[in-house]
C-alpha cells in the first residue's frame, strides 16, 4: 500500500478517508472510542446551546481533542439558508473553524437536502472564506452547480440520513465522479461496511458515517469494520478491476494437464 494516497480537502491532507459523525452514541466515551477505532481524522460536530444550568454535563471537546482530530462543524437540523449561515458563522467564532459541512434540509420525513437553499448558502459561505463541504442530492447537475458556487467538496447522499439503505443510485455517483476533480464524499444512508466499500469502488474519495456505527449493536466492531471497508474499497478502485464477462475464464493453464 502506498502511503501517499492522502485525502486532500481544501489543501489539507488526511490519511484516513473515513469521516465519522459524533451523534447518536450512548455517551461521549462510546463516541470517542468508536472514533479512535475507526481511524477517522475528521469528525462532524453540531452547534447547539450551552446548558447554562447543568454545567457538569460532559463536553465533547473533553473527549475528542480538536487539536488531534479535525472538527467539521455541521449545520445538521437547519432548514433555511439563514439558519445554516448563522450556525456556521458561530462555529467559526468558537475557534476559527473554516472547514465546515453545509447541510440544509428540505423535508422532515426524508431529510433530503433543499438544494436551492444549499446553493445559495454555498455561494455566500465561499465568498466569506469558508471551505464548504456540501451535503447534496445525488443529482449530477446540482453537483456541478455546487462546484461552480465554490464548494470544497461534494457530498451526495447514498440514501436518506440514518436509513442504512446503502447507495441507491450508483450510476449518478459514477457520473458525478467522472465530471469533478473535487473531493467526492458519500454522506448519509450507509448501513454496513460493504456499503462503504462500494462507495470507494465507485471512485469516491471518502465516506461519512454516523448512524451505521453509532447504532450498530456493537459500535466498536462496526467502527473497525468501516475503517477496513474504506481501505479495501480504495485499494480495489485503484487496482483497476477486471472486465466483466458472461463466460468463464479458467484460472489454471491448459498446458500440462494429465
Amino acid at each position: 500500500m502506498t502511503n501517499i494516497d492522502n485525502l486532500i480537502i481544501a489543501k489539507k491532507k488526511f490519511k484516513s478517508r473515513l469521516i465519522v459523525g459524533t451523534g447518536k452514541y450512548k455517551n461521549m466515551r462510546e463516541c470517542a472510542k468508536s472514533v479512535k477505532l475507526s481511524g477517522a481524522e475528521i469528525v462532524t460536530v453540531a452547534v447547539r446551546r450551552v446548558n447554562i444550568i447543568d454545567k457538569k454535563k460532559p463536553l465533547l471537546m473533553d473527549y475528542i481533542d480538536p487539536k488531534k482530530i479535525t472538527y467539521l462543524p455541521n449545520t445538521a437540523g437547519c432548514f433555511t439558508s439563514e439558519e445554516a449561515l448563522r450556525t456556521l458563522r458561530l462555529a467559526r467564532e468558537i475557534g476559527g473553524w473554516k472547514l465546515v459541512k453545509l447541510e440544509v434540509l428540505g423535508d422532515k420525513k426524508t431529510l433530503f437536502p433543499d438544494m436551492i437553499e444549499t446553493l445559495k448558502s454555498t455561494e455566500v459561505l465561499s465568498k466569506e472564506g469558508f471551505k464548504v463541504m456540501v451535503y447534496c442530492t445525488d443529482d449530477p447537475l446540482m453537483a456541478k452547480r455546487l462546484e461552480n458556487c465554490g464548494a470544497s467538496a461534494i457530498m451526495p447522499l447514498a440514501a436518506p440520513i440514518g436509513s442504512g439503505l446503502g447507495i441507491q443510485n450508483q450510476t449518478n455517483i459514477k457520473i458525478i465522479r467522472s465530471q469533478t476533480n473535487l473531493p467526492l464524499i458519500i454522506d448519509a444512508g450507509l448501513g454496513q461496511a460493504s456499503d462503504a466499500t462500494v462507495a470507494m469502488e465507485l471512485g469516491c474519495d471518502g465516506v461519512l458515517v454516523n448512524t451505521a456505527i453509532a447504532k450498530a449493536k456493537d459500535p466498536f466492531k462496526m467502527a473497525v469494520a468501516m475503517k477496513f471497508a474504506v481501505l479495501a474499497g480504495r485499494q480495489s478502485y485503484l487496482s483497476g478491476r477486471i472486465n466483466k464477462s458472461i463466460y468463464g475464464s479458467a484460472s489454471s493453464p491448459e498446458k500440462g494437464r494429465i
Partner: protein
Amino acid sequence: MKKVNKIKIKINGKYIKIQDKITLLNLIKKLKVPLKKVAIELNQSIINKNSLSKIKIKQNDKIEIVHFIGGG
C-alpha cells in the same frame, strides 16, 4: 446600603434576572462558561470574544451561548 438594580434578559431561550450594568465578560464568568469553547451572540450579532469586556448588557437583551456537541 446601595440598592442593586436588576434587569431581565434572555439567555439561550430562558429569561433570567441579572445585575444592571454588568459586562458580557462578567456575565460569562458568572455563568462559569468556558470561553475558549463557546461562541456568543448578542441580539443576533456574533460578538468577538476580545470585545466582551466592553459590552454592557441592557434590559431585554437576547444572548445565545453555543458550543460543539455530538452530531452527524
